[in-house]
């Protein structure tokens, strides 16, 4: 990747105030992203989703985000105004969420939700936005876009819901797309279709993609680079093709936990964790 860096993050930290004292979800994460596909893998609670949300400055109310550096296309995200952030959200950096059953507004027609995303950033007329949303529905391979436009979220299937989500988040043509477990809530057969669609769209538009997942194999086959997270820290960053040459014991441990058809094992090994991985200094 010789292109200019779209996104540079250094020492990102997200801390939540809770009744039981502060909880550090992300603890000093650094990475950069060009127009490439970066995968972030890790277990539940490893801080991968919070890293994604921190980029949009949409952490929960009790969360505090700090970073030595968090720059997107020359804009300092750490102290950008809320107005600037609103102009970036959707239009420049967008995010696809996990489950369309919860991430689409239940009382608004799906087409209108897509059109809204377009209107926010272009100020287009309702009519123009409707036409664009209709085109976008076709782009995400929904047949009979005109009919689907007027459906409500509870009337569409999970796979279709996620296509609507993709259409909604890509209609303003962002530079970076964060996909937070975009296929985890879908049936396995639909998963591949949605991933293929996402792949095409990212390639066609030359976007930077951050794919957050707990599925090592999926990330390895889909991304250029893989960042492995554990306990809010980055364990290692690898070229996706070289995942199997991983050095870090945590990554090795994760890889060993995956059952394989070619080399069946009687019992999968249990991952042993080292408290030292969570230490600050490398």
């Amino acid at each position: 990747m010789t292109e200019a860096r779209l996104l540079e993050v250094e020492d990102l930290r997200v801390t939540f105030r809770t009744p039981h004292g502060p909880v550090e979800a992300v603890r000093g994460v650094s990475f950069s992203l060009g127009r490439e596909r970066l995968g972030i893998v890790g277990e539940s609670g490893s801080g991968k989703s919070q890293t994604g949300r921190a980029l949009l400055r949409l952490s929960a109310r009790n969360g505090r985000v700090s970073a030595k550096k968090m720059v997107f296309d020359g804009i300092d995200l750490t102290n950008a105004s809320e107005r600037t952030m609103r102009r970036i959200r959707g239009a420049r950096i967008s995010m696809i969420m996990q489950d369309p059953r919860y991430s689409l507004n239940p009382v608004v027609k799906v087409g209108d939700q897509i059109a809204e995303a377009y209107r926010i950033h272009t100020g287009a007329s309702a009519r123009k936005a409707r036409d664009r949303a209709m085109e976008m529905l076709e782009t995400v391979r929904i047949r009979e876009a005109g009919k689907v436009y007027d459906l409500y979220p509870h009337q569409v299937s999970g796979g279709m819901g996620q296509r609507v989500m993709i259409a909604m988040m890509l209609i303003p043509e962002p530079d970076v797309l964060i996909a937070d477990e975009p296929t985890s809530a879908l049936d396995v057969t639909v998963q591949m279709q949605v991933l293929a669609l996402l792949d095409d769209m990212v390639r066609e538009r030359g976007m930077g993609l951050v794919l957050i997942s707990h599925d090592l194999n999926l990330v390895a086959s889909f991304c250029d680079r893989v960042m492995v997270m554990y306990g809010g820290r980055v364990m290692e960053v690898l070229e996706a093709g070289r995942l199997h040459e991983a050095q870090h014991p945590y990554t090795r441990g994760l890889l060993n936990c995956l059952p394989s058809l070619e080399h069946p094992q009687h019992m999968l090994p249990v991952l042993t964790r080292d408290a030292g991985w969570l230490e600050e200094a490398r």
Partner: protein
Amino acid sequence: MTDTNSAAATGKLPAAPRALRATASALVSLALTFIGLTAITFVIGRVMPADPVLAVVGDRASEEAYQRVFLEMGLDRPIWEQYLTYLGQILTGDFGTSIMTTRPVTEDILRFFPATLELATLATLIGCVIGIPLGVWAAVNQGRWIDHCARVLGLAGYSAPVFWLGMLGLLIFYGNLGWVAGPGRIDIYYDGLVEDPTGVILFDAAWHGEWEIFWNAFSHLILPAGVLGLYALAYIARMTRSFMLDQLGQEYVLAARIKGASEFSVIWRHAFRNVLVQLITIIGLTYASLLEGSVLTETVFAWPGIGQYITTSLFNADMNAVLGGTVVVGICFVGINMLSDLLYRFADPRART
């Protein structure tokens, strides 16, 4: 044009028959509720120890007169026949004669009910217009001082006795400051000048263009409506706040923010539309309970409403009036529930099945 196609695809009836079927089933349930309601009031009227004949003829009437009235009222016939007669009378708007006022109960209700309707409607409006934004505002600023203020106001409105608030209000705004008119619906010299077409003075006065009467009636109405409105407001604001907090924590709200929607749009266009669905029921219930007539408020403000009418009738064992009033209140309750069901369908696409 593609209506029937899309209906077939989603496995549902086309829009028109669906609406018809919904209306039909609503009407059937209305009829059943009505039969249940009248049966109960009828039974109450029969098991009450008050002798309906004595109530008419008085306790010094001759045995002959007593027997004549007993037969006239059909009390010798089987109970189910009496019920059917009663039902038939109600359906033609005949609730019998009130002993207390010596007028037909229907006529009384037509005089008293509009007063309550006026009061309850304005109180509910006050509750919505102030309570909903207050609840939303409190939820958006959860944990900040405005939230605490709203909660204290809500608690006060909900727990302060209405008669105490009413008397305090009269003392301050009528007695000391003179900003509003005192008890009653209207000043005596305007009384009875406009009575048609509805009996709701504000409406009738506006209808006839009698603005002097309108403002006089309004200045009588605003204090009791404000007191009841505070009660409605407290409840509506509290419910709005908790519904809003729930919705603001939903994923689709985060999705709207990710799209870059403004805070105003996130709150009102996205979250509030979902809150509204739940609020319809709350507002309907509040309105219905206010339409029952709030005896305490009506007593403090000498407001000739249905609550006072029923209560006074009850103390005088005036069963025709009590039953008539109860049926009317019951019908209001059922009617408002049906209306909120309809609105609910309108507001929530998931309920349109």
